[in-house]
């Protein structure tokens, strides 16, 4: 399988070529119980995992709690990481995002978050959509997102950064669920192709 891995490509541009510090290699060492490698993997991925968790949760204290669980999970599961199933960074991001949305969807978190949103007097989808568009005004991702229709971009960002199910997105946007499902799928296909993620 010759996969162009955009995540790793981004990293290697930033970090320079050093095979020993590739996240996948570090994660493989974590899987052998190497706590030094775990520290290294934390340093390599913490901005990514915390960034997405705090984006979804919008509460730094709760986000840190969740990130703590994320890294315990990374430690537990590292022996079973399989590079054929994706890059180490996307593996970590997947665990982090899943934990964040599961926490957000638990009733307590939902209540806290909604109160917070009410205090800010901003509709939740507006907040997320605006934040996301503010923060995504740069680089490759922006250009990729530009290839999406406005409605696809809205559906993808509300789902991923807003932590909403597609059903919730449909309710927020007052659209049929099937429409939102299709927009998410079409949007993600366009992004996948724009990012060069191909099998």
């Amino acid at each position, binding site marked *: 399988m010759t996969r162009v*891995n955009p*995540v790793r490509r*981004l990293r290697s541009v930033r970090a320079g070529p050093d095979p020993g510090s590739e996240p996948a290699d570090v994660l493989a060492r974590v*899987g052998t*119980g190497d*706590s030094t490698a*775990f*520290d290294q993997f*934390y340093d390599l991925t*913490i*901005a*990514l995992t*915390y*960034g*997405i968790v*705090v984006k979804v949760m919008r509460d*730094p204290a709760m986000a*840190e709690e969740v*990130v*703590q669980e994320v890294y*315990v999970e990374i*430690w*537990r*599961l*590292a*022996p*079973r990481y*399989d590079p054929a*199933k*994706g890059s180490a*960074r*996307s593996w970590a991001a*997947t665990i982090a*995002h*899943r934990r964040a949305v599961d926490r957000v969807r*638990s*009733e307590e978190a939902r209540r806290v978050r909604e109160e917070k949103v009410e205090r800010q007097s901003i509709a939740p989808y507006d907040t997320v959509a605006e934040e996301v568009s503010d923060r*995504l005004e*740069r680089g490759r*991702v922006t250009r990729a997102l530009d290839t999406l229709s406005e409605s696809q971009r809205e559906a*993808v960002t509300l*789902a*991923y*950064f807003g*932590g*909403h*199910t*597609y059903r919730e*997105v449909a309710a927020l946007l007052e659209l049929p669920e099937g429409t939102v*499902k299709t927009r*998410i*799928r079409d949007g*993600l*296909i366009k*992004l*996948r192709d724009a*990012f060069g*993620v*191909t*099998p």
Partner: protein
Amino acid sequence: MTDQLHHLAAAYALDALDIDERRAFEAHYPTCDICSREVVEFRETAAVLAEQSQAMPSPELKDRIRDEVSRTRQLSPLLPESVVRLSTRRPWRTTLLMGAAAAVILVIGGVLGALLNSSRTDDIDAVLAAPDAVVSSLDGDRGSLQVVWSPDRSQVVVFGNDVPAPGPAQTYELWFLLDEGVAPAGLFDPDDGRVRVLLDVDDLDGRGWGVTIEPEGGSEMPTSDIVFVGEI
């Protein structure tokens, strides 16, 4: 249904499915080449989006995590390939059917065998060795549990490590998740974080397991949120 499942890979990769659809899709996609490939691709795509929201937590977090990790045991890498594939693809569901039963016994026996010394150890072993034993991994905010069920023996063994105490005058209750509704499957409590409990259960067509925290003595119906969940 299957046709619809094929179109859920994108929403799944964004964690935008509700729990029922997530479970249904996780049961489907490892058996479907197209969906498996799409899940990998869409997760990579989502991770590129995540790269744009990088942020740093407080510096103290690393020490707290180090501390907890130093007390946490890693999962065994020695599972057979089929099991590894299931467990990495389906974090919420690891179902091992009869073909893998021997491997299951080896793995669980190897990890836990030395720890089992209750008077019902023989019965626990018998459940693990049962040809129809089905192992489910339950996940939740309170760590992880494994449930081994032998329908022929009408018995279930619950395994867990680092499971926090349920609270004063409270107990954990295991539930069968049925096609419609739930049915009680028994009570258990951790002993210093560890759970090794044998339960006698009704003969039901369980689709999954759920665990809630209930008042001492248990409840007829769940009275709190599910704290662990997994598919059978």
